[in-house]
């Protein structure tokens, strides 16, 4: 049942592509990460990006968000080529997405509340009382208790840091959020809670989610579509169910039909 539903979702949203990557190439020194990489992300979907360690998933995220320059290829976000943007347009565009880095990347000298308010301060001119109210709201939405607001990142557990990082990424109600291994390092219960949180927020806020992950449970519970990075390119995209039924690639077969996948599916 879940499959027909997700296929419907995919079909409905095919019409609007928010991120379109074409012919991307990147190498570090003599090491070629991808030769020609194509990827589409549709509005309102949760896209999981999987692939072996060192295939360049994190690098791809950094390239799309403009932190690393590609050697060749085009990236269109919201139907604009990111290379054509002026400085101001780029800043505006950055307010429309949020990034959760692997360990949260919270600013260590600011409290959680101040961390959440950083994007508001940077991009908007809001009175402090509104920023406080909104930050507390965001805190509650990612499932942190209000007591966490005045803590500093070093006083939080790993899971709390991730939630706080997510709250900061959601600070401006972005249209796209990028998540780099959001459930890595969480206990299974915490990871599953985080999966549901992402799903819930995606539905509530109408988010488009780009999620790098290794976690099979996440893939089967939250991802509408999965893109597989292998052999220096995206070898296949499809719903988790499709990939499991017709792997057509040894790595996908190993990943989706291996022992752990069967356990996750069971």
């Amino acid at each position: 049942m879940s499959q027909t539903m997700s296929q419907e979702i995919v079909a409905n949203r095919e019409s609007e592509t928010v991120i379109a990557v074409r012919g991307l190439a990147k190498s570090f020194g003599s090491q070629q990460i991808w030769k020609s990489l194509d990827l589409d992300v549709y509005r309102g979907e949760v896209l999981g990006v999987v692939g072996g360690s060192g295939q360049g998933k994190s690098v791809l995220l950094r390239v799309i968000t403009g932190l690393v320059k590609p050697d060749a290829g085009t990236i269109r976000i919201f139907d604009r080529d990111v290379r054509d943007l002026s400085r101001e347009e780029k800043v505006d565009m950055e307010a429309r997405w949020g990034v959760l880095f692997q360990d949260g990347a919270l600013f260590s000298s600011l409290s959680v509340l101040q961390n959440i308010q950083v994007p508001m301060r940077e991009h908007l001119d809001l009175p402090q009382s509104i920023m406080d109210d909104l930050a507390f709201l965001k805190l509650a939405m990612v499932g942190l208790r209000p007591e966490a607001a005045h803590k500093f990142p070093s006083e939080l557990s790993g899971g709390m840091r991730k939630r706080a990082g997510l709250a900061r990424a959601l600070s401006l109600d972005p249209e796209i959020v990028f998540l780099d291994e959001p459930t890595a390092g969480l206990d299974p219960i915490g990871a599953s809670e985080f999966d549901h949180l992402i799903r819930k927020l995606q539905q509530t806020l109408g988010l488009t989610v780009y999620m790098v992950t290794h976690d099979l449970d996440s893939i089967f519970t939250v991802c509408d579509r999965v893109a597989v990075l292998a052999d220096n390119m995206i070898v296949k995209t499809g719903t988790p169910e499709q990939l499991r039924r017709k792997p057509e690639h040894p790595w996908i077969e190993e990943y989706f039909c291996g022992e752990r996948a069967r356990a996750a599916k069971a």
Partner: protein
Amino acid sequence: MLKRHTGVILPTRAAAPGFRIELRGTAFCLVASGSWTVREVTDLDGGLKRLRVPIPPTPDFTGEMDISGIEQLDTAGAWLLQRTARLWEARGLKTRFSGMTEGFEILLEEVRRRSTQDRPADEGGASISGLVREWGVAVTGVGREAVLLTGFLGAVTATFVRIASQIWRFRPVSFVHHLDHTGFRAVPIIALICALIGAVIMQQGVVQLRTFGAETFAVNMVGILSLREVGVLLTAIMVAGRSGSAFTAEIGSMKMREEIDAMRTLGIDPMETLVAPRVLALIVVVPLLTFLGDMMCLVGGGLMAQVYLGLDAAAYIETLHNAIDMRHFFAGMIKAPFAALIIGLVGCLEGLKVTGSAESLGFHVTSAVVKAIFLVIVFDAVFAMFLSSIGI
């Protein structure tokens, strides 16, 4: 942000934000329209705050939030709507929403559920009692610092004793590394600074004493001052700035990344591996650097003596020889290992006090340098009084 129409978004600008109040039968109606997002929230908030809460004339009046005109809604907009609704409810106006899409409904419900009223106060706020408390903490803090430093001195001494009795615990590689960094690499800068200060003292001494016709006594002054005070103080200050701060930064960043905890769990004693080699290296190195500083002060003074007094090297050394004797030299040198101990202890202790944040690291590095220099100078003053009272 949610849009009313999913599907293809037309590239037109969203309508200007706004709302108006209507009376529809027995319902006060807030008719909201346009874009209710975080970008408009300041204006909307201002407008809503100016709006007086309607007072129901009879109890059967109700409230309504007609949001069918809203094109874009995000958390901030939903929060404003819910806040207004809550305000109206508090006035006894039963309020409902109308014109919602499915998505808006989910968002509004989520925001209603998550808007908590109970908030912990931020302890950092300024208040009279807070100020008094801070003073109290600051004053007792001095005492606590003293206790902590003394305790640390004890711990380091115990570590030294343990190392002395179990010599395989000694870390020669680390020790030599710190000898190099704190000692050898400090030679040029300390030599230069001391020579310059020696020269300045000589030059000033000559100029001032000339009014009494006593300019040759400037040599006595430079000789005694350099050996007793200037050499050791300048060296200590330079070492505190160079090495004390480095100790704090090194140990502090290890503390931040839980490396010290990792060492403890591996059965490695950070006192032995981190603190002892550093303190020991300083105790060896600072007397040597002080000797260098003393000599360079005299050299700097000698250069100036040549320029201002016309004394050549042989004559300068002759005058110096008559002016000073060994006790002046020892009075300076005896202070060097103690200064080294102070700098090493303070540097390492501050490093161990670092907590998680980058800010805390910066704070402790600064405080290590300030405390070390302060303590060295206080100690120097006490020593000066003691030595002159016993006639050295």
